């Protein structure tokens, strides 16, 4: 383990991250010199993930959670802000430096039917990162592949190494994808909706693997729209709305005493398992506004059930809720 954990700093620290995508103007737009427009996908996100911690980034489609993850791994370039991984600034690394660092940060995707190459046997898929990064001899690679497969519950490995993806179930494919992300012994694993394509009967198995990896010291950033999963598995939850984190705290703080009106509304519409447990749903009308034209002031104010006049003017910062240091919400009416 490196110094990063010794002095108590988080392994991953993201500060004021901004990612914008340019909206194509088309030829007539360019000739007429119409103003350039941007999709403000991520507008000032800060978050931290420690070793041995699972942080869930939750929010609806289009809120910027996947773009945040991609910018952390530099799969897209940030327009502003910083991403520090074990005290190294990721946003300014040169290509060879980035390549070395990437061994330590891995990602698994939502769809195990799409993310595995159908022509690769399991052994080739899992060994590929080792081959690309030229780690170890053939036999060392083989051992690493077997270890990774055992770690994700595909045991005995001999039973799986020669199979093709079409010979595996959805849950097994996702296990293979996780094994491939583990062979390089990363310190950070980003999991983008890791179970949403899978049957409910196998989800717990996949989440259990992430849980165990976290217990062994891996930092896990899980992107999900499923609040029940975040509540059960994550240590901390960050709630995103229209490119911003509007609330963050420990999973129990956010779920049991949500402070932001958006979080409250979201939690009220999550269906509960027990038919007797009825929660009055606080259904927000309309849809999330378009991230090209972000509302003035608090970006949630047009849909907010408790907005006051000041909410149209002032863009609230994340502030700590009374009596809770790590529990913060971006609402002008916090604690009132």
């Amino acid at each position, binding site marked *: 383990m490196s110094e990063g954990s010794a002095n108590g700093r988080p392994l991953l620290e993201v500060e004021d991250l901004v990612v914008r995508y340019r909206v194509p103007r088309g030829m007539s737009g360019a000739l007429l010199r119409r103003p350039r427009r941007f999709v403000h996908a991520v507008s000032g996100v800060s978050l931290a993930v420690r070793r041995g911690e699972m942080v869930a980034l939750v929010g*609806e*489609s289009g809120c910027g959670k996947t773009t945040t993850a991609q910018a952390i791994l530099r799969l897209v370039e940030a327009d502003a802000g910083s991403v520090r991984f074990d005290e190294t600034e990721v946003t300014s690394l040169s290509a060879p430096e980035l390549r070395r660092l990437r061994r330590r940060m891995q990602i698994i995707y939502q769809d195990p039917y799409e993310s595995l190459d159908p022509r690769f046997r399991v052994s080739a898929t899992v060994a590929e990162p080792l081959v690309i990064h030229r780690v170890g001899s053939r036999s060392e690679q083989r051992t690493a592949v077997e270890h990774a497969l055992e770690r994700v519950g595909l045991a005995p490995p001999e039973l799986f190494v020669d199979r093709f993806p079409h010979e595996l*179930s959805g849950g097994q494919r996702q296990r293979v994808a996780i094994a491939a992300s583990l062979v390089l012994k990363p310190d950070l694993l980003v999991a983008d909706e890791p179970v949403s394509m899978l*049957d*409910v*009967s*196998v*989800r*717990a*198995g996949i*989440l*259990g693997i992430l849980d165990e990896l976290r217990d062994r010291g891996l930092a896990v950033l899980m992107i999900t*729209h*499923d*609040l*029940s*999963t975040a*509540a*059960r*598995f994550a240590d901390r939850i960050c709630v995103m709305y229209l490119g911003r984190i509007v609330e963050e705290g420990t999973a129990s703080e956010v*779920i049991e005493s949500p402070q932001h009106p958006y979080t409250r*509304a*979201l*939690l009220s*519409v*999550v*269906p*509960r*398992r*027990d*038919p*007797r*447990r*009825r929660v009055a*749903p606080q*259904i*927000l009308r309309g*849809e999330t506004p378009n991230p090209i034209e972000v509302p003035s002031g608090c970006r949630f104010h047009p849909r907010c059930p408790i907005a006051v006049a000041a909410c149209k003017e002032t863009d609230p910062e994340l502030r700590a809720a009374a009596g809770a240091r790590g529990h913060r919400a971006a609402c002008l009416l916090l604690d009132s």
Partner: protein
Amino acid sequence: MTESLLGVEDLNVWFDLPNGGTLHAVQGVSFSVATGTRLGMVGESGCGKTTTILALMGLLPATASVSGRVLFDGVDVLERGEQTVAPHRWNDIAMVFQGAMNAFDPVQRIGDQILEAIELHKQASGREAERRVQELLEMVGIAPGRAKSYPHELSGGMRQRAAIAMALSCNPRILLADEPTTALDVMVQAQILELLLHLSNDLGLALVFVTHDLPIVAQTCTSAAVMYAGRIVEQGPIDALYHEARHPYTRLLWAATPDLESRDDVVSIPGVPPRLDAPFRGCPFAPRCDLATELCSGERPELKVVGDAHVSACHYASSLEVVS
């Protein structure tokens, strides 16, 4: 008990496979639906839920053979195949297909596509049909002006509302909805569920929800059927199905579902369902069941009454301890 509107009796569906084999996808399914009630059909992928409701609509492909009875108002609609089912399809029983919101013609306005459905089914024509489109859009919560929108100009939630409006164009009495909120965000999902509940409560529409999402069924349905390997293994009022589940599979499904307010361990169900292209002996769930005995692998359990309108196909249904 209210009079049953739809009765399904001993429904079986077989598919011819390209290799000459046969897959027995639905194996003796029976259930009934009364006006204004909401039935959830749940189970893992491939358990036969979608095939069951496609059979009710008479929409299975030519490779399928069907047996059993589907009674609508007491009349068997499957009796002479297409000839007897066609008059009921859309007029009495309608369906919102999985992914319907992505199945609109991209180059036709939404309103025109609904209009086409109305005219095709000779519900109305001309000005009256246009009025009907406005009425349907209003019913599902779409502003009348949006009739002129193209599908890509509407959000996913709005397109799903339009798909529901289209299914309602002939005033059906039962709506079958296949995964109606999958792929929608939780807030939009809440809006669609609110709409379906309104249609059921205020217009008396009977609903059959096919979904893999148990909490949705818990919060919106009056009863539920749990399917496994082509059969209903447990069925009952939703409260009993959660609090007094009498089949080990039902219990495991609940335990595999995380809940916002519970710190209970979430379990996975090891193993996979049996193949349906070969006969098997005993209880189809036995190989994955912790409680299975020799009896279970030798003899197939039939559905037995275990409570009020509550049936379970487990040899040990009555001795399963009631946990809650």
